[in-house]
């Protein structure tokens, strides 16, 4: 087994294993930290796929941004001072059936299709290609994404502010 395959299996197991912990852990803070390992695993898989820029963005946005927000959410919405934070499950049987069907379908489609693969692609850096695409062909979606972020920011501040009228009078 070569080094590449070893790394792939290692990070694949890390990703899936910690994803299991995220979903099935009884302690919500363990879920949050397991999610961090999932994000790390996915970032490592990006590196194996020669997508260095995406990998670092993954760390920057998911691990450094979204997960911090989630942990804030956990700390603000649970009794933080008790270390035990139990959360329950529901609808186990129908959910299992449904997901089994989804998994079967996805794996069947993925493995049955004959993908038009370019053999042994070696990328030097992806930054330039992505940048050129973003400011040429996809300039309108990028602008829209920017507007979306602005709207989301204002909306989040409005919703989370304790009393909006008081904030306005300031």
């Amino acid at each position: 087994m070569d080094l590449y395959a070893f790394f792939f299996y290692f990070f694949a197991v890390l990703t899936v294993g910690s994803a299991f912990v995220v979903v099935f852990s009884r302690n919500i803070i363990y879920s949050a930290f397991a999610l961090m390992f999932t994000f790390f695993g996915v970032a490592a898989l990006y590196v194996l796929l020669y997508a260095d820029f995406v990998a670092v963005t993954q760390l920057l946005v998911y691990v450094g941004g979204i997960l911090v927000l989630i942990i804030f959410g956990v700390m603000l919405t649970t009794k933080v001072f008790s270390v035990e934070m139990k959360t329950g499950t529901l609808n186990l049987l129908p959910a299992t059936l449904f997901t089994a069907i989804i998994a079967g379908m996805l794996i069947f489609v993925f493995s049955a299709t004959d993908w038009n693969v370019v053999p042994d692609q070696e990328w030097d850096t992806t930054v330039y290609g992505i940048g050129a695409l973003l400011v040429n062909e996809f300039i309108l979606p990028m602008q829209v994404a920017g507007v979306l972020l602005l709207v989301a920011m204002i909306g989040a501040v409005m919703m989370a502010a304790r009393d909006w009228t008081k904030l306005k009078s300031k």
Partner: protein
Amino acid sequence: MIETLLIAFIKIVIVLLVLLTAVAYSVYAERRISAFIQDRLGPNRVGPFGLLQPIADVVKLVFKEAIVPRNANKPLHDLAPVISLTVALATFAVIPFGNTITLFGEEVKLIIADVNIGVLYILAFSSISVYGIALAGWSSNNKYSLMGSLRSSAQMVSYELSLGLAVVGVIMVTGSLRLDQVVMNQTNYLFGVLPAWNCFVQPIGFITFVVAAFAETNRQPFDLPEAEPELVGGFHTEYTGLKFGLFFLAEYAHMIVASAIITTLYLGGWHLPYIDMIDVSPMLMSIIGILTFVIKVTLVLLFMIVIRWTIPRFRYDQLMGLGWKVMFPMALLNIFITGLILLLLQ
């Protein structure tokens, strides 16, 4: 293959050794300088001028009993200091501490990991450093720890924005995310005399970055996470012995790494201005490069220490106001001006 791995390994070992020694002695420097500023003597008993004090400190911390509070979450309580220190040390991997050096007929780049996206790597790792503190605060099961860690998370997340946006200006000037390219770009001269360091090219970005870096490293005047009068010791209140030592090391490692990043991005890295006008042998040139880098980092570090002992702590609302209402618009303005000038110069 084996050869490259071996070279990388040697580089990692040397850099780690130097970095950890530097961390230990920056603690000593901080204590001596604070003593000088407050008209005290400071540590001067162990060895000549107290120079062996760091060793004594480490020995003391290692042999102290490690106490874990009864209701703390033990695995996370142990993990937190490790994350803090690892993240701080890992950031150093992409920083070029010299140009190239030719040893035994082999040209070696003086950087551990020469990656395409060094600038982003630094930002990513600085954003991860929140976790050590957040985990420590939460797992200690102590209200002071938790308040400290919540404050620090909010502070770091807010100042990360200005940090990232300030770096965008440097990226625009350089046209590359490679850190060695950033340094190379600063070896030119402005108007033929002034070295083209980014602190002259990007003055607004430079100030924004330095202030944000102070906030990111939780240093005075932004050390609210461990404001002693209010929060006992902040997030590391419940830590003792070696684990407390790790947090202590991490704080100073963060400072050194921050100084190295400031040096690389804004102060010309390993480049000594005007040295290329004199004829020096390549070997000497490499050594001068490394020395220049070390001296610049030390100066920035001393600056950080002096600031800590001369400026009072910010209030929490002032801190957030400064971050969002001053630093953030300034960083945006910097990007706008940089873009405008680049467009006009085209």
